[in-house]
């Protein structure tokens, strides 16, 4: 609509939009302490526009008005701003590499801590839990599953997924070199699959923002996949810095398929462990 009115569909509208977005994100930060200011602009813009349409606001300023005065709206908006999509053993090759190359290293530690940053609705956590159980490491591992969206964390903690997604999960699990049947880990009822409670026995769920919060534990493995893509450069650096200081010497960092450390200021601190799978190892002295 705006585009039609404006003679130049991009620049002036974009500029107003940008101002509105910045103001809105600032407002969200000041009011709710969710810091999206360091998120990649293009993506945030798209998602905010979606939210705007959903909430029936004419402009982002109107949305801002509502968000400021209706705190319950924030919860919904949060699910717009955070992209909650994942699957069990997403990118099976990543998990296969973990299984084949990283696990043997991890095996040498008597106890392990694994940080799944941006765990979303928990698929990644369960993938790890299953992987570690299959590899016999589960009992000595403590998982930290963190996300900024409390709703997503609740879902993660519940561990209930649509039954029709299981097919994909099973396939992924198989491709990841799964040693058991995925069905060993869930029960089905009412068209949904509930993952075994014991899988999250060794898990701490916590809301934690890579944008504002600090390191909370020393970990052996950080998996933060498809989170950095939503961050701008500075925020990416901050997040990687958190992983760097959380990881033990020679600890492992896993990123999403499209994410890389190459251009980070902190690339020096890591060495590529498995290039294709975006698995990095913290260097000796970093």
């Amino acid at each position, binding site marked *: 609509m705006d585009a039609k009115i404006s003679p130049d569909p991009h620049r002036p509208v974009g500029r107003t939009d940008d101002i509105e977005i910045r103001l809105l994100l600032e407002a969200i930060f000041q009011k709710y302490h969710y810091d999206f200011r360091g998120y990649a602009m293009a993506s945030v813009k*798209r998602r905010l526009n979606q939210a705007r349409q959903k909430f029936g606001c004419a402009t982002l300023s109107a949305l801002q008005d509502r968000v400021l005065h209706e705190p319950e709206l924030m919860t919904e908006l949060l699910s717009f701003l955070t992209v909650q*999509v994942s699957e069990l053993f997403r990118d099976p090759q990543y998990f296969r590499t973990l299984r084949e190359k990283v696990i043997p290293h991890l095996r040498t530690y008597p*106890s392990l801590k694994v940080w799944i940053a941006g765990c979303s609705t928990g698929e990644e956590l369960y993938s790890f839990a299953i992987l570690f159980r299959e590899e016999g490491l589960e009992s000595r591992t403590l998982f930290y599953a963190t996300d900024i969206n409390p709703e997503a964390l609740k879902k993660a903690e519940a561990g209930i997924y649509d039954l*029709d997604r299981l097919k994909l999960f099973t396939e992924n699990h198989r491709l990841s070199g799964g040693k058991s049947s995925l069905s060993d880990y869930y029960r089905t009822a009412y068209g949904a699959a509930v993952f075994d409670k014991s899988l999250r026995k060794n898990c701490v769920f916590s809301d934690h923002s890579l944008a504002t919060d600090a390191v909370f*534990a020393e970990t052996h493995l950080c998996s933060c996949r*498809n989170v950095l893509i939503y961050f701008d450069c500075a925020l990416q650096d901050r997040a990687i810095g958190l992983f760097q200081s959380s990881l033990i010497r020679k600890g492992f960092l896993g990123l999403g*398929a499209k*994410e890389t450390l190459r251009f980070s200021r902190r690339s020096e601190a890591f060495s590529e462990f498995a290039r294709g799978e975006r698995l990095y190892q913290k*260097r000796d002295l*970093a």
Partner: protein
Amino acid sequence: MLLIGCLSSRPYGHQRQTVAAVGRGGIGDATLINLLKKAATDRQLRTDLIISLSLAMIAVFFVISGMISFLNVRTLNRNAELVAETHEVLLGLNNIMSLLKDAETGQRGFLLTGEAAYLQPYEEALPAVENQMMALERAMESQPHQVRRLQAMQGHIDSKLAELTRTVDLYRQEGPDAALVVIRRNRGKADMDAMRGLVSDMQDETRSIRQARLVERQEAFVTAFASVLISAVIGVILSVAITWMISRAATLRRRSEWLQSGQAGLSAALLGEQRLDQLARNALIYLAKYTDAHAAAFYAADGSAYKRAATYGVPVDDDLPKNFTRGQGLLGEAVVDGKAMVINNIADSHLTVGAALGQWRPKHVIILPAKSDGVIEAVIELGFLHAYPPATADLLERASEVISVAVRSANYRAALESFLEETQRQSQELQTQSEELRVNNEELEEQSRALKESHVRLEQQQAELEQTNYLLQEQAAQLEVQRDDLSRAKDEVDVKAIELEQSSRYKSDFLANMSHELRTPLNSSLILAKLLSDNTGGNLTEEQVEFARTIQSSGDDLLALINDILDLSKIEAGQMEIHPEPVSLKRLASDLERAFAPVAAQKSLTLITRLGAGVPETVITDRQRLEQVLKNLLSNACKFTEAGSVELAILQDEGRIVFTVKDTGIGISPEHQHLVFDAFRQADGTISRKYGGTGLGLSISRELSRLLGGTLAVASQLGLGSTFSLSLPLANDWSRDELRRDTKVAPPLPAGLPEPLPERPAIPMPRSDVGDDREKLKAGARSILVVEDDPSFARILYDLAHDLDFLCLVAHTAEDAMATAQQYTPSAIVLDVGLPDHSGLSVLDRLKRDVRTRHIPVHVVSAGDYAHTALSLGAVGYMLKPVKREELIDAFKRLEARLDQPMRQILIVEDDEVQRHAMCKLLASQDVECVAVGTAAECLEKLKDQTFDCMVLDLSLPDASGYSLLETLSQEESYAFPPVIVYTGREISYDDEQKLRRYSRSIIIKGAKSPERLLDEVTLFLHQVVAELSPEQQKLLKKAKHRDAMLEGRRILLVEDDVRNVYAVTNIFEPLGAIIAIARNGREALDTLDKTQELPDQAIDLVLMDVMMPEMDGLTAMRKIRENKAWKKLPVIMLTAKAMKDDQERCIAAGANDYMAKPLDVDKLVSLVRVWMPK
């Protein structure tokens, strides 16, 4: 009769309506039957009614005739009574007269006699008169004038009687005289006389009345007789009429019963859900049987035509029409008429009756259009051989509607069925469609969900793309920068090249010009040296003569070198002039042979010269240069050949002349073959020492070959000899321009010959300047490897190393450095980053990855700033060029200090011998010595005598567990307790791990990757001892050397699951005098608080609480603490990784006294603890 007709017509109409209703509504057959039954009952009723009415009429008739008779009798009776009444009146009148006479007689007697007995008639007569009078009065009521007469008589009677009574009374009272007086008056007599007249009148009148009444009675008799006669006649007539009527009613009833039962039977036959053909057949069978028909056909309407639906008694081969239309034949006419058609006594009909014994044509035919609501649904034709029952037509007429309705309903049913079928089919289709829809819907839902998901996924992909895009941009930017750098560098290079060219020319010019200047003094000195060596004066000692000879030979060498350099620079500067002339190859060969024969002879080599077939006599070229090249080749061949032969062959090959010099010498390894032509290169760096020479010969030869328009190539096999081939064109255009060009562009080499690889830049003379000490190197000697391509700097480092009593190895390239390091394993390495072949950083990386070299400390020197990378790769130090000498000394001293540390000793405690051995092999290196034991006892034994830098411990030992060993070590002062790396095959529980952590900082579980990690940990450990604590911690330690009074002896409970933080906090506070208790999660914290609560000497003074912990998080634990009264005032500081204000407010809300954000700031934490520590 009219009434009957009316009555009979009503049920018909009613039935018609109902049947129509059935037809229209398609009501079931049961209803039809009911209606038919009802109609039959109506007909019965009608007949009954007729009979009843007739009987009732008879009854009425008899009642009326009876009543007439009764009236007649009554009239007769009455007449008789009236007659009798007149008799009574006559009698009564007479009686009264006689009674009066009696009374008078009695009176007279009495009066006469005075005797009372005479009075009796008188007294009796008095009441009788009264009675008689009353009776008369009653009898004569209806006759008024008679009554009047009677009243007049009453008056006379009363006065008579009164006179009588008076006389009697007077007589008694006064005597007979008085009475006679009265009698004498004669009044009594008058009365008597009047009365007699009255009576007689009355009697006359009564007699006349009687006479009239008698006549009346007679008349009544006649009337009664006549009426009886009439009623008898009427009765007979009535009886006859009723009898006729009843008989007629019975006939009607039978007929109607026949019709009814026919109809009912037909209905029954048509009953049920029959198909049209069944129905038709059933109807025919029934009708035929009921009416004794012999053949029948049934045509049902089908659109405008009528189609045969069934036949009865008709043979199969009959020519009965299959169908007909309106007006076609009699059947069609019947349809047009809409009325049954009866045809009797026909000779021939199309209907045929067929049986086994013959076929007959019916005599009578009835054609019946079955019609209802004016529509003819079917036509039935019945054929009779004999006369048919009279009611047949009627029956058929009646059946018409039933059949029609049945046909219609059969049609309806058929239609309905087909509709139903259609509906069912449609419903089925609908079902299918709905199923499909459901599936579609599900698919849609699925798709919509998938869409949603893919939407989100797209979102992610888009973000990913953007990320990629961003990375690409970044890369592009980098590339751009690189390109800019490159182009800048290129510009610089261009400028430099120009400068270089210029300076090169200057240099060449200079060198060329210098030749003379150089040679002149050299010459003189050579000459003088010669003079001296000749010792013409004889005044020199033998030794001095030798010196002079040395001077001379060195001078010769120098001259040769100068000549070579001069040649090369001339060629490079393009100053070499070519003088082509015809050269006799034969002579060339013999000259060369002559020249080298002595050398060959000296080394006992066979020198062969060979001219191939078809080689031309002469070739146009510069003889001097050609000779120079060949001499060089031959001289090299002789030089590098210890035994065997050297052969010079001149051959022709496709328009070229090829000179090959073949030897059986040491040969050149393939990787060095391309180097031999490079200036200042020799196949083996060490060769120069053995064979001498400048290494310029081949370079010059090649340049000369090029000048001559030819190529120089080598083929060689290490140890078997080499073949150098100089290929020259037979015909050459010796124009100047081309010459120039040729000096720059090498002509293509003939195929098969190895192509020289010019990519590596010429490297300055390696050891001619610096040389190194590799020969002197002995095992255990302190040595430094200098990797530096700048000879002067290498030299400086070399000297410096010597100054500091190191032996020095020098490598100029990365490859060389690696090879040297691996071969000699120097004590330390000084590494330049800018090496000609690879970056020094790659060398560093390779060194650190190689088990043989990873322990060697490396100090990096570079012109560029790679400090971070270098250090992260494991360099011990870093210096930026230019470096001051002092800095260098400092760096060397640091390396020295590192090296001066005594040999590291590691104690390996492992029961499995194979593993023990493997571990020793793995860990032992130049500065690490491994001592391996198999039992705890041996271990203790060793530790009693010796100290170790580090101990690698397997937990499962034959004589004691690793734990108990560690316990023992920690408790017994007599044993040295080195730092421990636990190396175990068992899994360790969390508690065990915590227990072990007290003694060991590193626990390794055996597995595929464990050796790697063990080595890593040991290496780290051995090299990390210096800086255990972070600088911050060390600073703090220094600052807080004196213990903090406020914290001395105070107990702090640290609730934290992260080992690193536990370690850090413990290290901060323990030196300050505080005692740290540790809990790994909220639950443990509560337990600890619980346990220590009662013990005053162990009570916790302050709690440091982490938020994110397993089992029970910090906030929950905090709240639980505050729930306990005893701990209301216990100071608790929360340590949170969450930085937002409300996160921290949540800590306060949960009951924390204060909070601190991670990462922990040591100073701040200490002061915070001071603030909250109870005084």
